[in-house]
């Protein structure tokens, strides 16, 4: 499966909505799913042709009694000399018919109840859900046994009815939940707004989106029904003269096949049930993986990929010395500072799929200085989130760092290579030196732990020498720092407001007084007023505590306001790097110019908003040359041939010199030669290695 967009989270949402209603058929390509389909198909064929190919009449008695498997009787004979293979073949038909028909009726019931309850809502939902839940809780088999006992010897039809009556509830419950969530989706709302009839909305808009779930529930019920039928038959509660897998086992049990050692009598029937059940379950796993894309990603995480989180060549790592916790006085960041704390050089992150490699972060070199706020801007899919994850080495397969280095400069002047750290070194490094704040505190805080506990466990993991009392005091201190009242320490995340949660997140980030905090869209999920409070808090804390920040957002106006330096990313590359003031006054790259013209700023002069034509690039199919050229108003011929490097541009002396990756500035500065067009092929997705 190819990764459609750059970040994992985005890939998920794109997948789960599914472009085609029949996209689930793709799931059938996986080997285990295919095995399941073949097994089920074989049983279906046998069920149809069974009676024709069976060598004997299953009920015909003969003199070869209790014969083990032989050429004449491939599966041996019973106590009365009946051929077990023939019984099995006839039995396949009966068992499958009962299983499938019962599942059809049960699924119909669950679809009707589930859709109706989920769609109609209100009192009908209450009543129908209650009904489903009641049937779910009442143990099915005893009820089935009793019902079957009341309808003695009615044959398969009665059994089918009984099984379907007791087996519909689970499917109904799942479908109801699904319908409930679909009902709120835009396209259903739209259909309702246009006055479509309820029944036609249900069957035209909702039903097709649930085919996968209905299929899964159907297959599950088939398994259940075959098992139930076998149990009932085994207990002698069905017509025991009608051959099914369960009846074979019944006769084997009644005739004490066990005690006479006639294993061939009961082994085939049980195995048949088990194999058919396994086949159906395997098909269901395929469907599950379609419904839940995260499960599918687990398959991608092969052992090799897990180990190869970092592909770049490993070097001997310099042993990091334990940090001196007193960091000395806070020195405010000054433009032009050379006190580097983090250095990325030529970093490249690939999403490795079975047959292709998509580069999400390409040749990114950045330096972060002590106390600096480095803002990274870009549209979704520009690779900024992937970059944030890569810096903390939190990226998961299929993402992999395939080139580049990341160097951390310790306070004592020594350096550590983040990419070569072992698991233990990494665990020590994380949070102590580098913390991360995620976009949604709602999702980033563990819902079952109190806020205090989630701050405390970070402290406990890194400062084992601290006493419980000291830790508790530190937690309170941190909460006070971010402006949360001390009595909320034992609150759970869901008990806090959105702004409070984000503050709590920041408190978690500050727990160990880290040198760097990576903030991945920390304010995007908040409303403007809260956003402002949080940003002010971050700036205040930064000035007080002196940490450096990598601030990632698509909100350019916010970025300009709070950053010292701004890096703009496009299609995985840094296309402009400049001092924030310089950037605001004089954006160099045409893309930056377009971005600035599409955002109103909170302060500063008014100007006309224009925006950028076209859509963000598809990372799998980047244009040759400069990735921005199809959307660039200033593009010229050479832009389609050459990937521009970052050109140094003249700026005011005291600032970091501005850099832009655009051929317009070729020759302006003293940057290296633009890469040749041969090299450009390197930038389009490569074949699998």
């Amino acid at each position, binding site marked *: 499966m190819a990764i459609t967009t750059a970040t*994992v989270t985005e890939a998920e949402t794109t997948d789960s909505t599914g472009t085609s209603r029949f996209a689930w058929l793709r799931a059938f390509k996986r080997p285990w799913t295919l095995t399941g389909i073949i097994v089920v198909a074989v049983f279906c064929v046998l069920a149809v042709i069974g009676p024709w190919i069976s060598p004997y009449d299953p009920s015909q008695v003969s003199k070869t009694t209790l014969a083990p498997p032989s050429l004449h009787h491939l599966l041996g004979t019973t106590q009365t000399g009946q051929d077990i293979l023939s019984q099995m073949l006839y039995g396949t038909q009966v068992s499958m018919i009962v299983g499938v028909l019962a599942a059809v009726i049960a699924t119909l019931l669950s679809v009707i109840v589930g859709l109706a309850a989920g769609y109609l809502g209100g009192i009908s939902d209450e009543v129908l859900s*209650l009904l489903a839940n*009641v049937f*779910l*809780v*009442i*143990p*099915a*088999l005893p009820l089935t046994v*009793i*019902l*079957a006992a*009341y*309808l*003695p010897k009615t044959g398969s039809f009665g059994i089918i009815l009984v099984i379907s009556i007791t087996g519909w509830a*689970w499917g109904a419950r799942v479908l109801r939940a699904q319908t409930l969530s679909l009902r709120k989706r835009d396209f259903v709302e739209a259909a309702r707004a246009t006055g479509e009839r309820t029944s036609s909305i249900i069957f035209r808009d909702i039903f097709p989106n649930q085919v996968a779930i209905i299929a899964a529930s159907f297959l599950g019920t088939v*398994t259940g029904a075959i098992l139930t039928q*076998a*149990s009932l038959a085994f*207990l002698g509660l069905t017509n025991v003269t009608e051959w099914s897998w369960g009846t074979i*086992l019944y006769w084997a*049990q009644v005739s004490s096949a*066990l005690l006479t*050692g006639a294993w061939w009598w*009961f*082994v085939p*029937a*049980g195995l048949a049930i*088990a194999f*058919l*059940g*396994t086949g*159906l379950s*395997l098909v269901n*796993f395929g469907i599950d993986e379609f419904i839940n894309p*995260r*499960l599918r990603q*687990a398959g*991608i*995480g092969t*052992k090799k990929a897990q180990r190869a989180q970092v592909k770049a060549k490993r070097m001997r790592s310099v042993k990091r010395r334990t940090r001196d916790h007193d960091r000395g006085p806070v020195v405010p960041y000054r433009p032009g500072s050379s006190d580097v704390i983090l250095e990325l050089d030529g970093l490249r992150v690939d999403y490795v799929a079975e047959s292709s490699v998509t580069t999400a972060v390409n040749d990114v070199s950045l330096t972060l200085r002590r106390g600096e706020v480095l803002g990274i801007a870009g549209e979704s899919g520009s690779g900024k989130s992937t970059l944030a994850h890569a810096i*903390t080495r*939190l990226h998961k397969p299929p993402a992999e760092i395939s080139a580049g280095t990341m160097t951390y400069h310790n306070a004592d002047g020594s350096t550590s290579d983040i990419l070569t750290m072992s698991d233990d070194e990494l*665990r020590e490094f*994380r*949070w102590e030196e580098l*913390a*991360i704040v*995620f976009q*949604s505190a709602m*999702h*980033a*805080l*563990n*819902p079952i732990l109190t806020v205090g506990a989630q701050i405390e*466990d*970070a402290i406990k*993991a890194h400062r084992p020498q601290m006493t419980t009392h000291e830790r508790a005091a530190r937690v309170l201190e941190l909460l006070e720092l971010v402006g949360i009242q001390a009595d909320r320490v034992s609150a*759970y995340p869901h008990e806090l407001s959105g702004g409070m949660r984000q503050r709590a997140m920041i408190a978690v980030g500050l*727990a160990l007084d880290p040198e760097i905090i990576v903030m991945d869209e920390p304010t995007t999920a908040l409303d403007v007023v809260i956003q402002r409070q949080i940003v002010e808090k971050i700036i205040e804390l930064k000035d007080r505590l002196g940490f450096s920040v990598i601030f990632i957002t698509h909100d350019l106006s916010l970025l300009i306001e709070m950053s010292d330096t701004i890096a703009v990313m496009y299609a995985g590359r840094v296309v402009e790097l400049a001092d924030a003031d310089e950037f605001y006054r004089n954006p160099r790259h045409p893309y930056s110019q377009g971005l600035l013209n599409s955002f109103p700023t909170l302060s500063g002069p008014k100007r006309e908003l224009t925006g950028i034509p076209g859509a963000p690039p598809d990372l799998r199919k980047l244009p040759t040359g400069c990735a921005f050229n199809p959307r660039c108003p200033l593009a010229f011929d050479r832009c389609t041939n050459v990937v521009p490097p970052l050109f140094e541009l003249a700026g005011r002396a005291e600032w970091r010199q501005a850099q832009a990756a655009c051929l317009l500035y070729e020759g302006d500065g003293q940057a290296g030669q633009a890469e040749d067009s041969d090299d450009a092929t390197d930038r389009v997705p490569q074949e699998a290695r």
Partner: protein
Amino acid sequence: MRVLLRRGFFYLVTAWAAISLNFLLPRIMPGNPADALIEKFHGKLSPTAVQALRVLFGQSHASLWQQYLDYWHNIFTGNFGTSYAYYPTPVSDVLGQSIGWTLVLITVCTVLGFVIGTTLGMIVGWKRGSRLDSLIPITTLLSSIPYFWFAICVVLVFAIILKWFPLSGGYSVTETIGLNWGFISSATYYAVLPALTIVVASIGGWLIGMRNMMVTTLSEDYVKLAEAKGLPKRRVMFTYAARNAMLPSFSSFAMSLGFVVGGSIVTEVVFNYPGIGTVLFKAAQAQDYPLMQGIFLVITVTVLIANMLADLAYVFLDPRTREG
């Protein structure tokens, strides 16, 4: 607390529905089972028993409502009538003798199956993509095997071929039932094979459910953050991933328990275990309707109580359900 009240109300409704179903079933069934049964026991039933049977099937002069009230009265006084399969023992006595066996067996097996299956599922999910994933098809096969067939195989191997364990029954006939060491050790010894059957057959379901939830949970931001915090692996795995991943197991507990109870009933028959499953089987064979009614009631009420315990555990494990 509102959640608990709501659930409590739900269980009351469910219990009422199950008990009323029990009342209705004999009355809506086709044919005339009462006459058939009286015919079958020709002359052996006392007049009061015949009368009780007619009442059970609604052949009485009282109005349906009056019958329903009488029925409820009987339930609260523990009067379930006389068993025909064990004539003339009262149903309540038959239940009393068998329920303990099943209760102990199923409780122990459910807890064991849940703990082992969930733990394995947690590990397989944590190490997703490793060789452990090949366990999944195997456990799928195990969970697709009918309980009773697995029981037969276990009996064949361990009781008939290896002779390590007894073939059937619940305890050695030389022991007397009671709280004495001889009986308890004998009962434990006899319970090994049935328990093995139920535990092994139920592990697969728990394992796969937990594994899938674990995989889903592992891509949650809070697990990523826990990792970023540099927490020890064990804490990330248990407190962050597993504790959240196992929550759905509790909300689908009802269905899982239903499977185990159903499977255990048939397993008991194979082992001729003195529990309620074997009794239900005998009752169904003999068309002993009063006994079947009693068994259904007892099983349903027990399952309801087990579900309530699962709900309580859920509230305990998930703070989000505690609000309001």
